[in-house]
């Protein structure tokens, strides 16, 4: 049983790790994402050079971005930086999960930030995407 607590700069530890739940990527997920970002490229609904439809490369980015929610109650935060390496196409039907490690935390101009390095992988261990993101924490 996970014990959740409010996220704060002091509570957060460099080296802390997070693991998301496993998500089954469905055609409906791809369709909803296409609507949300208004990107209806035919590769996402028909055929693609990879054989069959694929998902938007950034489809699972929120799974990674929300990693800290697996341990903390996060009322608000701002996303400051994002880096991706897209290693394999995301296909509908894949079961994917993200794992992340807090690699840094710092204060700049009085505002607290955390930096997380992550990978998103398929059930068979294939790495689909990896990257790093920086988030600003709100003080209450």
């Amino acid at each position, binding site marked *: 049983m996970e014990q959740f607590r409010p996220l704060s700069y002091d509570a957060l530890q460099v080296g802390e790790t997070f693991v998301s739940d496993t998500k089954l990527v469905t055609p409906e997920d791809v369709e909803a994402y296409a609507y949300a970002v208004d*990107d209806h490229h035919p590769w996402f609904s028909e055929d693609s050079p990879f054989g069959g439809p694929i998902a938007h490369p950034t489809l699972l*980015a*929120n799974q990674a971005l929300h990693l800290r929610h697996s341990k903390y109650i996060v009322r608000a935060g701002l*996303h*400051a*930086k994002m*880096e*991706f390496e*897209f290693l394999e196409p995301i296909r509908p039907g894949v079961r994917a999960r993200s794992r992340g490690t807090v690699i840094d935390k710092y204060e700049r101009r009085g505002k607290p930030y955390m930096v997380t390095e992550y990978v998103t992988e398929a059930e068979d261990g294939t790495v689909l995407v990896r990257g790093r993101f920086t988030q600003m924490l709100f003080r209450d």
Partner: protein
Amino acid sequence: MSTLAADTAAPGLALPPLVKEISQRKIDVYSGVKPYSIHTDEAWARKKGFRAPLAQAMMSTAYVSELMTRFVGAGFVKGGTMSMVFIKPVYVGDRLTVHGVVKERRAEGNATTRVVVEVWCENQDGVKTAVGTASGLLAGGAA
């Protein structure tokens, strides 16, 4: 599979821009409607100091992904990179234009070329909201 434009693009080439209208409904679908969310709870967004709900910054990475997939093709989906800094909020009702200019081509291995694109999003007032670079792989090693 890459586009003809990407195969021949020289540094300085401007990519066809994308225009994105930011509606609350699209934000809701992207972020999921929740209380205590600066994206989908207007009262909470105001309490946190914003004049309106914000689009998730990650939505701008999706727009850049679209720009690059249309330009580079499969070599962005597999082998692409993106590095973005989010410098200004994007609010519901904003209209973003997503730009890209080819910055560099370089050989990567014996058989591929990486094309690097400077990318940015700007709102209807011409204010840049996100800046960065993105890249993708093209078949052929001669940069």
